[in-house]
């Protein structure tokens, strides 16, 4: 056994029993008859047929749509920050990075609840407006923009950090050379920075999108359950409905979308280059 494999073995065992096996169990369950809790029954396609007849596709579309919108907004928000972290901040970049990291360690539903306190009627925002200026507005809580705000807020670091890694891969000399040769800022961005930073940017897109497709807390806490994303459907099937096979079938469909994207993107990348380059 090679030394590498020997070191990798404990992690591979963990991934086999903690990741691969549960997912196989979900796939198996998705072929079990309705409302059973056992893995060993006559397989059936009934759950998938039930999904096709149901309105689950609406939840799927909401999840995909919200994830696309979140990813695009975050790309625009994060690019200038990532650029600044790499090129401008100097000794402060570590402190700024820490400030972006700290919220990651508080569970997302607690932080989203902070937004509820901010946006709710008589909350921090509307209460201040009312007492200082006498303006009474209706709360934006429990609307679609509130859900998007929550998602943008929660997934920001997952776009920012890979993007920063990507931009750090662009050698400053290459940029300077392009400027010296008379390139405009737009040309440098389009033809030097963007292509060279692409691996980090694509990983940021992928990570944000994949996590956002699986989002549930934002729609629950900030959207007041007005929009039901697909993971909420899955959760309902697993909990209230006690129909694990149906929930599993929905989860399998979601896993397909995620796995397709992740494999498509990761296949092309050399991780040594992205993570190891100094």
């Amino acid at each position, binding site marked *: 056994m090679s030394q*590498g494999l020997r*070191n990798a073995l404990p992690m591979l065992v963990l991934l086999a029993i903690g990741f691969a096996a*549960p997912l196989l169990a979900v796939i198996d369950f998705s072929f079990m008859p309705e409302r059973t809790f056992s*893995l060993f029954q006559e397989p059936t396609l009934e759950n998938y047929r039930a999904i096709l007849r149901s309105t689950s596709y609406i939840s799927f579309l909401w999840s995909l749509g919200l994830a696309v919108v979140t990813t695009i907004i975050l790309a625009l928000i994060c690019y200038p920050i990532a650029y600044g972290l790499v090129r401008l901040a100097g000794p402060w970049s570590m402190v700024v990075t820490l400030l972006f990291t700290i919220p990651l360690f508080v569970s997302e*539903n607690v932080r989203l609840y902070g937004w509820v306190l901010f946006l709710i009627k*008589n909350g921090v925002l509307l209460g201040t407006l009312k007492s200082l200026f006498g303006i009474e507005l209706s709360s934006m809580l429990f609307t679609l923009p509130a859900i998007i705000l929550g998602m943008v807020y929660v997934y920001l670091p997952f776009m920012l950090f890979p993007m920063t890694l990507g931009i750090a891969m662009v050698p400053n000399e290459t940029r300077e050379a392009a400027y010296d040769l008379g390139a405009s800022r737009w040309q440098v961005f389009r033809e030097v920075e963007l292509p060279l930073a692409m691996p980090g940017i694509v990983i940021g897109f992928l990570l944000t999108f*994949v996590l956002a*497709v*699986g989002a549930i*807390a934002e729609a629950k806490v900030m959207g007041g359950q007005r929009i039901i994303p697909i993971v909420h459907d899955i959760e309902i099937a697993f909990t209230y409905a006690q129909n694990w096979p149906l929930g599993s079938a929905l989860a399998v469909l979601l896993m397909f979308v995620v796995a397709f994207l992740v494999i498509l993107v990761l296949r092309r990348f050399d991780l040594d280059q992205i993570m190891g380059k100094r």
Partner: protein
Amino acid sequence: MEADRGAMRSLILAWTAAVIVFLYVPAVCLALASLTASRYFTFPIPRWGTEWWGKTLASFEIHQILSTSIAIASAVTVIAVILAFFGALAFARYDWKGRSLYQKLVLLPIFFPQSVLGLALLLWFNALGLPLSWKTAVFAHLVWIAPVATLVIAIQVYSFDPALEEAAFDLGASRLQVFREITFPVLLPGIFSGALFAFLLSWGNFPLSLYTTGADSAVPEYLYAKMVAGYTPGVPVLGTLSTVGAAILLLGFWSLITLMRRGSLPRSEK
């Protein structure tokens, strides 16, 4: 051109500052809500007070939940760091046949919706007939946190020069000696960061805990249950405590590393 760049620079700095403010709006709101004397939150706060801090910190229920969370996070940290240390060596240090595939496998649990992973593990534990408790939650956390810790430590391993190990071997050191005196100390900062990440990510995790803790309850779960039904200002108190705790741990760790680097710089620059 120079003035132009200066303008862009200030624009980027202002934008970054604005986004940081945006990130901390919820934390500030939680802190405000925890300092009210009344049961329900209205703003501006009619009567300020710290009663809810006292009440929350004295509650037996809260003590139990905190100790469950600490037990889970500590167990996760120890196991994750051990797995991730060797995992990171395989990830970044050794050249071996399956490495590129292994690197991608390690990323998969990170690129996966956590609530779905939590449900899949619930189903898996049930199929195995394992009763749910804080121990199953530790396992569930590991599936996601050990890969993250591996990446954090791998970054340190990438900057590690294998020639150091070889030189020690050439000078007659045993495998154990090389590990104890070269590999481990050189990778220590990475191991520390990995441990810190593991602890904090476990502490703040909700989607995995929700389905896998059974009757035991961790802090984020408890808070969620209270937010949905039975809000008291104890919720923002505990939320604020979590945020401030994470901030103190991270900033303390960062100053420690900076001090250590300053202390060791003159020697390496000689």
